[in-house]
């Protein structure tokens, strides 16, 4: 970025999401790490059973915003949050809400594949076991692995270490692990940034399939990826939400100068 462009206090919005379609509603969310404000009064409505992409340059706060949806930021010392995140009408930052419960409903997939050094089976069964699942674990593991398009590749080696898989397979294992806890929202933090193009393509197709059953929010550095997988896109800059709306509109008809520059690849 060569010249300063004022970031507007008001977010530019295209085609707002109807209230009845909303899964996650973020209202006036601000977040501080100690005295540093990482997010400035962001409001964003995430529609159910769609893929929403958060894009923006490094340090724009998109990962932080993603992590505040399932309260992963609570784990960071010195974090302070103001504003509201509602999921199915429930205030996630309410006084009686247990962050553990939030994370069980809103699953997460991380940037770097991080399977546990356990068997493939135990990786998938980890979440259900945490919740004291007593039912048919084999069926549940198979279902999760099928949903993550990994079953055919691993069905004969469920007892092998999750770390024996390739990077792309590991990431799909992590997706299966998140799905096994039966969340309704899945947060993905740059899930393909550590993968090669073929593995990336598989994950992207998987994301496309997942939205039938899940609401997906994905942070990505890769604008082509945002264009390929998402229904709606939100562009963040320096902790502010600059512009959000249907992905095709954001890419073809951005209204804010910063968005226009970013999606055309002129900075970031």
């Amino acid at each position, binding site marked *: 970025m060569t010249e300063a462009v004022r970031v507007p206090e008001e977010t530019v919005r295209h085609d707002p999401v109807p209230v009845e379609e909303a899964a996650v509603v973020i209202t006036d969310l601000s977040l501080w790490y100690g005295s540093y404000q990482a997010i400035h009064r962001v409001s964003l409505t995430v529609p159910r059973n769609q893929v929403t992409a958060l894009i923006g340059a490094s340090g724009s706060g998109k990962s932080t915003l993603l992590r505040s949806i*399932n309260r*992963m930021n609570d*784990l960071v*010392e010195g974090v302070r949050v103001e504003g509201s995140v509602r999921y199915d009408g429930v205030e996630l930052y309410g006084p009686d809400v247990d962050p*553990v*419960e939030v*994370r*069980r409903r809103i*699953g*997460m997939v*991380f940037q*770097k594949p*991080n*399977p*546990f*050094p356990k068997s493939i089976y135990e990786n998938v069964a*980890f*979440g259900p076991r*945490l*919740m004291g699942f007593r039912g048919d674990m084999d069926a549940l593991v198979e279902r999760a692995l099928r949903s993550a398009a990994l079953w055919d590749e691993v069905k004969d080696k469920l007892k092998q*270490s999750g*770390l024996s898989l390739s990077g792309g397979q590991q990431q799909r294992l*992590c997706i299966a*692990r*998140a799905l096994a*806890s039966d969340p309704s929202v899945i947060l993905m933090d740059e899930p393909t940034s550590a993968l090669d193009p073929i593995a990336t393509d598989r994950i992207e197709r998987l994301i496309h399939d997942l939205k039938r059953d899940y609401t997906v929010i994905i942070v990505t550095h890769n604008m082509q990826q945002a264009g390929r997988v998402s229904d709606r896109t939100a562009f963040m800059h320096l902790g502010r939400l600059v512009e959000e709306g249907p992905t095709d509109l954001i890419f073809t008809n951005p209204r804010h100068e910063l968005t226009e520059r970013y999606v055309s690849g002129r900075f970031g």
Partner: protein
Amino acid sequence: MSRVLGREERADPARADRPERPDMLDLGGVQARRRRTTERAFGAAVFVPVFLALALLVTLLFDVVTDSFSWQVIEPRNSGQSFSFLEGFAAFGTWENVVRLELLAQGRTQEEVDALLSDPEARRVFGARNRVELMPWVDGRPLRWFVTSIRDDGVADLPLFEGWRRRAELLAGAEPGQVVLLNAWLDLGFLAKNASRSPAMAGLLPALVGSLMLVALVIVLSVPLGVGTAVYLEEYAGDTRFARLVELNLSNLAGVPSVVYGILGLTVFVRLLGLGPVVLAGALTLTLLVVPVVVVAAREAIRAVPDSLRQAAYGLGATRSQVIARVVLPNAIAGITTGVILAVARAIGETAPLLVIGAAAFVPRPPDGPLSLFTAIPIQVYTWVSENDVEFTHVASAAIVVLLLVLGVLYSLAFYLRRRYESRW
């Protein structure tokens, strides 16, 4: 600046004061030769301490092992019906049985023997002190011949190599009835025998059992304390003043001389809690000594667990205790175990704190529980080394070999565990 310096630049008179830059490919030149010499000298200098350390280690092992053998000229002064204590021990198991057989062989009736052996005072005397000395107390007659070994009456004792050189001399010089033999002080009997004032009779059993009980108790006590502290510091405590205080104390405690722990143990466990100088008091004292080491090792192991695994578990809705129990500790277990074993290896060799809390120098029988009086291998070695009798040198050497073997087993276990669990990463 960034341009590679070429020949024409070296010739530049404006840079004449710059040191001459050597040719890039100065394969046989003075510079290269000098460089190689320096490299070799440096390598040699680094190797010298390694060589010295190895030489010292080999010398120590050689010395200790050869010292646990000696050539002896023995004069069996026993009555014809006697047998050695060892044979009796092997055949009949307990010293009571040996005593019973011998008393019967002397012509006592079964009733008299039963009465002697069931008299608590006589038993206490048998058990608590050297039987050889105390036999007269039992019935006014010296019974020395049946509890002492034939080896008791050594005429000469020569070191392994000197004895081998002068074997002919020894054999020629032996009077009728005397026996020349190579005595291996470290045999299975040495591990099975109780303590004795006589070197030939002295065994390591009480000290060995004492040390093993200490180690078991130290593990049981120090693992929860040490791992708990490490988990608290790594997973719970933030950068609070209290956490920093604990950390500061831990690093200081690790450097406190072990005698000081002995005084602490003496004051708190032996006196204040009134335990007396028993196994438990010793184990508690050694636990204090060892916990800082365990904490440091456990913290390192816990810190080595990648944060991405914690994040993954939290992301799946694990509570903090679930993250610790299911992700952090299972992945840190190899490091923790290794740390505990190394700490225990330190504890097993500690002498000073145990001496200070008043561990007995002479314990005739192994402790039967955590509240018995006890001795440990290093204390036993210390006691034996300070004896006048030259034969005790061999006994002490044999005990040192046992101590080194126990340490060797512990270190191998640590090595094995580290190798085995590390392969999972």
